[in-house]
């Protein structure tokens, strides 16, 4: 009963999720279970090719499991078609990528307020929230610059701002510090954690870095056997 209540409170829930890309290869994910509670910030570690990004794609509804159930904020993703999943993602998910992926032809401000524009937030509210977010991430002075005029750290701040501007229920970060120097990486992780705690329901960080994982509330290891909890240092 208590377990059921915990599941009900979970922002993200994976139950016996199975995913295989080719029939002649082993499954990438085989019977994965995961519950991420409201306000929780989770790190997932694992070797390359073990299925970390597949896990993120399943959580975001960008891919579908062969078996099992993925629930985000109580909504079973298997019941949604592509459009509905996309609209859920638009509203409830924020992404941060290793390669930044900001639109090169939009200014920093335009990149950051893009999710709000997609949601149809009116111009006044959009402007106010964007200014706040840019200030919170320390890139207010760069608002009108184009991405090609920014450093790697500044680009990743822009990407984080874009991931959080619409106050998503979950933030998914895939190796967000892979292209940054250690000092910038540390700053970025602290910023990410603070922003997730302040604005989002839950966060999942995919990383190879033990140090990065230490910034999360809980660390999971993904390998061929599935997800196991790792001890914090």
């Amino acid at each position: 009963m208590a377990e059921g209540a915990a599941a009900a409170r979970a922002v993200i829930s994976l139950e016996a999720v199975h995913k295989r890309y080719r029939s002649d290869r082993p499954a990438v994910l085989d019977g994965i279970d995961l519950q991420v509670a409201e306000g929780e910030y989770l790190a997932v570690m694992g070797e390359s090719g073990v299925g970390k990004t597949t896990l993120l794609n399943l959580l975001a509804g960008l891919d579908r499991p062969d078996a099992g159930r993925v629930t985000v904020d109580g909504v079973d993703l298997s019941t949604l078609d592509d459009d509905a999943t996309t609209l859920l993602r638009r509203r409830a998910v924020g992404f941060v990528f290793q390669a930044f992926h900001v639109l090169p032809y939009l200014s920093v401000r335009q990149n950051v307020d893009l999710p709000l524009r997609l949601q149809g937030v009116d111009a006044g509210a959009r402007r106010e929230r964007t200014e706040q977010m840019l200030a919170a991430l320390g890139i207010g002075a760069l608002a009108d610059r184009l991405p090609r005029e920014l450093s790697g750290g500044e680009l990743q701040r822009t990407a984080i701002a874009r991931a959080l501007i619409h106050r998503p229920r979950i933030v998914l970060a895939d190796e967000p510090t892979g292209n940054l120097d250690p000092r910038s990486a540390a700053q970025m992780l602290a910023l990410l954690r603070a922003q997730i705690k302040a604005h989002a329901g839950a966060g999942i960080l995919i990383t190879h870095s033990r140090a990065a994982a230490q910034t999360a509330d809980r660390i999971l290891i993904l390998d061929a056997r599935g997800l196991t909890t790792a001890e914090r240092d």
Partner: protein
Amino acid sequence: MRGRRTLRGAWRVWGVLLRSQLREQPTRLILSVLAIALGVCLAAAIFLVNQAALAQFTDAGRRLVGSANVIVRGPRAGFAEALFGALARDPRVAIASPVLEIEAAVPGRREPLAILGIDPFRAGRLQSALVDGIGPRLPALFRTNAILLSAVAAARLGLHAGDALHVVVGDQPERLRVIGILPARAYSQPLGLMDIASAQWIFARIGRLNRIDLRLADGVDAAAFRAELSRRLPVGVLALAPHTQIDRTAAATRAYRVNLNMLALVALWTGAFLVFSTQSLSVLRRRASLALLRALGVTRAELQLALAAEGAALGAAGALLGVAGAVALADAMLRTFAGGLGDGRLQAVGAALPAQPAAIVGFFSIGVLVAAIGAWLPARSAARRPPAAALKGGNLGVESTAPSTWLLGAGFLALGGALARLPPIAHLALFGYLSIAALLLGAVLTVPAATVALLRVAPHTGRPVFDTAIAQLRDNVRPSTLSLASIIVSYSLMVAMMIMVHSFRSSFENWLVKLLPADIEMRVPPGNDTAFWSAGEQARISAVPGIAKIRFRRTLRIALDRRHPPITLIARDIDAADARQVLPIVAEAALARAARLQPVWISEGLADLYGYRAGQTIRLPLGGRLLGYAIAGVWRDYARSDGSIVLPRPAYEAATGDHDATQASLWLSPGFGAASVAAAVRARLAAGDAVQIMTSTAVRRRSLRVFDRAFAITYALEAIAVAIGLVGVAFAIGSTALARRAEFGMLRHIGLRRRDVVALLTEEGVVLTSIGVVYGLLLGVLLSLVLVFVVNRQSFHWSIDLAIPVLRLLELGLILVAAAAGTAILSGHAAGGEDAVRAVREDW
């Protein structure tokens, strides 16, 4: 030493680049090669066909002239044969051969049959290649009514040895007997050979000749002889050099041939822009790998040379395919259409494709050159780019704002405007073509600046997809406008051609309405000089019940000047006071009557070729005298580009005593039908079946059908050019979508549906193509002004009123935009799929 090292290095880099291109972008490469191949193929095939036709025509002309070095030529009606006796007795003349040239009307056929009446013994010494074909049939040729036909004439008329050939003389049918067919090698054009005495008898020209061929004795200066002879020849009789006779057709058809060749080069020109835009886009797409090559030690010169060679290699492959295709196409065209792509005056029957290695090499080189030029600019810009920037940021490291080429572009536009004002060279609108090239180049160079200006004023809609599309285009003006170059070039040329043809057609229609005011038009077969209606026959026709009014005309060819082909003289009822009612007058002079001379109206062609203007006096060789007439006006004549002149019929009759007529306009009385009146007219004439009688409506319809057929090849060539341009746009959209897969993947991550991604790409494609269409439309209108008022006027010597087919242009523009949208939708579906989601993991 250093140069050789650069070449070796460039060769190695070229190998790497081409291999990787072949692996990654085979379709793009293949299409670029095909575009060049198509352009070279069309241009070379048209050139080869026309050359084959021209070669055969020139050969036929040479055979008719043979070894004569002076041709004495009179009006078609001829001159007294006493002149032959005088010339034959001249000690400076070695051989004199009398000739009666006849264009005989053949019942049931539109075109007349050329008949040469010759003295076979004398002609045999001058035109041996032609006369040798007579062989053992020589005695039979002296029989009255005997005629030998060339193989082509026999085939066209469907006649064999022993058959009867009917011709019309005056209004009487005459029967000739075909005594044999000349071997095909003897003469390649339609021709009949008769003994001169028989010809004079049959065609009622006893004692008349219209040509005498002379071979001068050794040591006599032919030019001096011709000059001296010209001074004592009767009025209207000219002493010509043989090449003047031979070259006339070549000269007369040159403008048509040059225009057609220019048109064929449009496809090649568009292909060059396609190579330019695809190479530019390809260089932009590969900037990181090119920068890596620079970082690994490839020098700037090596990289530039290798990239230019990449384009040249595409050009070489395309040009090779193109010339091979051209030879096959030209051969097929000569077999199928009997050759000749000009205005119909240059028809080669069964002409063989001549071996033209120089032309083949020339077209191959043009193909390679245009592709190399197309690749040179992007190669130069790639080699100059600092490698560090490209290596650092990939896509983010590119400065993709509009380059400042607008000033150069404006310079070319101004140059184009200036060139359009220059006069023709040897009756060819060479500066007109150069003006078009300069305007196109100028327009392409100003496209980026114009696009920036347009995108700057694009409204902010609040729709994230559309606004994002505009932002993308605004920031990527250079690659965007590069992809526009080929479509702007081909579409603007298509627009220009459509406006020109539409203007011409509408002017031609108005011209037909003006010249065909009656209910029925009738005429003897055109071009002949044997059929006519005497005064008695005209009276009989006029008396046919149902004819309310009838106006007869007499048309004949007269030579004004030995440098030009004969002009057409039209003697008709016309009054200076109402000339504007019956002729499409473009210029008038009020002083005609003050000169106390009879007024005449000259065509624009005559005015251009001979330099006459309204108000001046023109001297015409009529009735054996040189008579002066006042030029009362200049009129537009679309039927005769060699020149024509309208003379009041009474004045003509007074000058010549010739009361015959060859054409008539008939107005019907109420209650009478055209068919019954036509049948009654035929019944009144002995050779009524040979007379062409049509309602004016039918004449107009047929004329417009012929007009449309003549321009069909124009439309076909233009459509091909636009198709090449569209391929360029499809390419640009497709490759852009491929290059931006990661971007679309990210957009899918943050909540754009697949259809939003499709919409984004479609809206970009539609906006970009719309800009191209609007720009191409404006440029096309500009180019059409050059075509209508410069190229057409200088090439064909007639004016056209500008008329713009607004609806058809809009239709074509919408088709292009729709095609671009279709390509974008397809590309968007591919780009927004699951691969795109995975592509965010790739480093861009």
